[in-house]
């Protein structure tokens, strides 16, 4: 075997890859392709799978109505494994090989971050998917996030507003040492400072923490009035359990805030009554004040599919907002009769979007002009029952005033 032959093998391998990449069929009157990657495995997989079902439901619906501009709609989905290293490649493939017409961002901030320079450079419309302040550095004017928050403060100000009811003076922070959590915590800390709250305890913990007993004990001995927790699903469960076991002491009136995971049905079901009293952010709960047109019907259809696919049967967090992404694209394409990204972006920027999560107007940065992160308090939750969360009154909205369905109760009182 000579060197040249060996090299030939190598070259052949590279070429085979190249041919695979080039091969794409050219058909007349193709469907409108909407491309995106979704975390179907990895840390974000649980939420990603649920979100995908919602998008697929929208595609079904829009095709049942005859598609967009008389063309069928087709979703092109790849799994990004929750890993930011995969998304630039995937989106280039979507654009250059699959030749998709429209783009939706991957779920969450980290996988989206590497895409922002790409879409800015190519001048593409990107519909954000529950990411957080990912556009603040790049300032792309064709970016629209579906999540009902904007700046970091919009996540936490309702939590601290609830805290005002108790005349709180001191606050403790417990924050996951990761991208999203750290950004939010920064917003929360600035609000706490403007309200004159004194920080008596502050702890960042790594994502691999097994046991939170020590941290909960430290909080207990710091005797804060408010405990702001910003955590990821695994940690959220562990923290709720630890607080149940160890107690945070009588000083604490309000605890929770930014805990990801307490919106997911499997977690809610297994924590059960331990959740009572916790106040946490949410984007949708089945309370009277959030009965937007169409959302109930959507959730009922979603629930059926979700059970088959072994994902979150409630789907209150990501799914309605993913369906809303589809609706926004539908509204913009139908109104402008165009697939031109600039035209669509202009339309979305200037008009109110009508979706199953209510009307949306966008600010300059492509985030919601008026944030709508609600704080809900768990009340009267019993063990081992997922269906209970479908009734109003289990997750009472305590802030903001416009959506309020009940007054916030002190933590220990709400637990009785």
């Amino acid at each position, binding site marked *: 075997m000579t060197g040249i032959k060996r090299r030939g093998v190598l070259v052949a391998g590279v070429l085979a890859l190249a041919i695979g990449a080039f091969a794409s069929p050219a058909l007349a009157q193709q469907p409108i392709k909407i491309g995106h990657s979704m975390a*179907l495995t990895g840390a974000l*997989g649980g939420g990603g*799978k649920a979100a995908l079902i919602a998008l697929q439901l929208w595609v079904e619906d829009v095709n049942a109505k005859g598609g967009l501009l008389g063309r069928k709609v087709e979703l092109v989905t790849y799994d990004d494994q929750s890993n930011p290293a995969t998304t630039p490649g995937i989106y280039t493939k979507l654009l250059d090989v699959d030749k998709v017409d429209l783009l939706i961002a991957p779920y969450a901030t980290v996988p989206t971050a590497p895409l922002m320079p790409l879409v800015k450079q190519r001048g593409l419309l990107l519909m954000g998917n529950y990411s957080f302040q990912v556009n603040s550095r790049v300032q792309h004017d064709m970016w629209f996030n579906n999540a009902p928050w904007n700046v970091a403060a919009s996540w936490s100000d309702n939590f601290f507003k609830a805290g005002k009811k108790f005349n709180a003076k001191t606050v403790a922070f417990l924050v996951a*040492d990761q991208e999203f959590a750290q950004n939010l915590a920064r917003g929360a800390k600035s609000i706490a400072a403007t309200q004159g709250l004194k920080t008596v305890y502050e702890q960042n913990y790594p994502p*691999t*923490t*097994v046991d939170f007993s*020590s941290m909960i004990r430290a909080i207990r*001995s710091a005797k804060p009035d408010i405990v702001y927790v910003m955590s990821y699903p695994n940690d959220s469960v562990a923290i709720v359990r630890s607080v149940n076991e160890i107690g945070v002491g009588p000083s604490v009136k309000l605890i929770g805030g930014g805990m990801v995971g307490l919106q997911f049905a*499997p977690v809610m079901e297994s924590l059960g009554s331990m959740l009572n009293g916790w106040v946490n952010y949410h984007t949708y709960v089945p309370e009277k004040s959030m009965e937007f047109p169409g959302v109930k019907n959507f959730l009922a259809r979603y629930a059926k599919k979700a059970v088959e696919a072994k994902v979150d049967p409630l789907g209150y967090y990501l799914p309605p907002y993913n369906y809303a992404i589809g609706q926004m694209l539908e509204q913009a394409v139908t109104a402008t009769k165009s697939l031109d990204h600039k035209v669509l972006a202009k339309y979305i920027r200037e008009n109110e979007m009508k979706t199953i999560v209510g009307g949306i107007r966008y600010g300059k940065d492509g985030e919601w002009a008026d944030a709508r992160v609600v704080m809900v308090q768990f009340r009267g939750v019993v063990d081992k029952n997922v269906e209970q969360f479908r009734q109003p009154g289990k997750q009472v909205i305590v802030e903001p005033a416009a959506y309020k369905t009940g007054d916030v109760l002190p933590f220990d009182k709400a637990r009785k």
Partner: protein
Amino acid sequence: MIFSFQLLFEAILFGILLGCFYAAVSIGLSVAFGLLDVPHVAHPAVLILGAYCTYLLGSYGWDPIVAGLALMPLFFLFGIALYRFYYETFEKRGTDAGVRGLAFFFGIAFIIEVGLILAFGVDQRLVEAEYIGKSLSFGEMRIPLRMLLAFAIALVLTAALTLYLSKTFTGRAIKAVAQDEAALRLMGADPVRIKQWAFGIATGVTALTGALLIIIGPVEPMLDRVYIGRTFCVVVLAGLGSMTGTLAAGLILGISESIVLMHFGASWAPAVAFGLLLVVLGIRPQGLFGR
């Protein structure tokens, strides 16, 4: 940061409990790798498998501890099969089993991961039981029952394995096989069967500690990657094959993590554990309690 002797005392106490948990999840590896020299990097994956099996039985109303105990014989057989396969393909062929054995167990770990994802999805899973979410009060201090359970299981397993290895014939044969295979052959025992038996025990024990894992906190299919570092850290720190050493190493890891967490911030905790490991490896490669 707040400092008081009360908190330091509590940090140590919780470090002990956490350390027992680390020791418990590592003890199967201590047999498989420590005594038998099998580079069993799939150990954490088997641990997660145990946790998921417990979850499965739990959904039929089984108590997690009972489920863990019931799974032990099953995992014992699984361990025997796994070792047999490993032996036939690697040890028997002799040279250079190291790299390939390692690669083999990595492959097994990935396959278990994917199997779990396909069977259970990627969501966090947890179990419910009477003793989860409760605690015992000692005056001001409240200790979670599940951590006490970890403490108890670690002590029982360490004691049982230590006794088994020193008092029974098979146990002594296992220890002998770790030191001198040829001598054992002269005594008329078949080293392969002994190793197979020991690997079965290691895997069986892991079923129970898998149940413990899901009692302590929620699990997800990729969680094994977090435990690769921790379990090997404990086993190597201990010195290979020492059961009491494993307990002690778990305690060292738990206490140092807990103290660092209280006084320097939690985000430094993992580096401390592994820094400790590097230092120990550099100074005393045979481990703190090695033979």
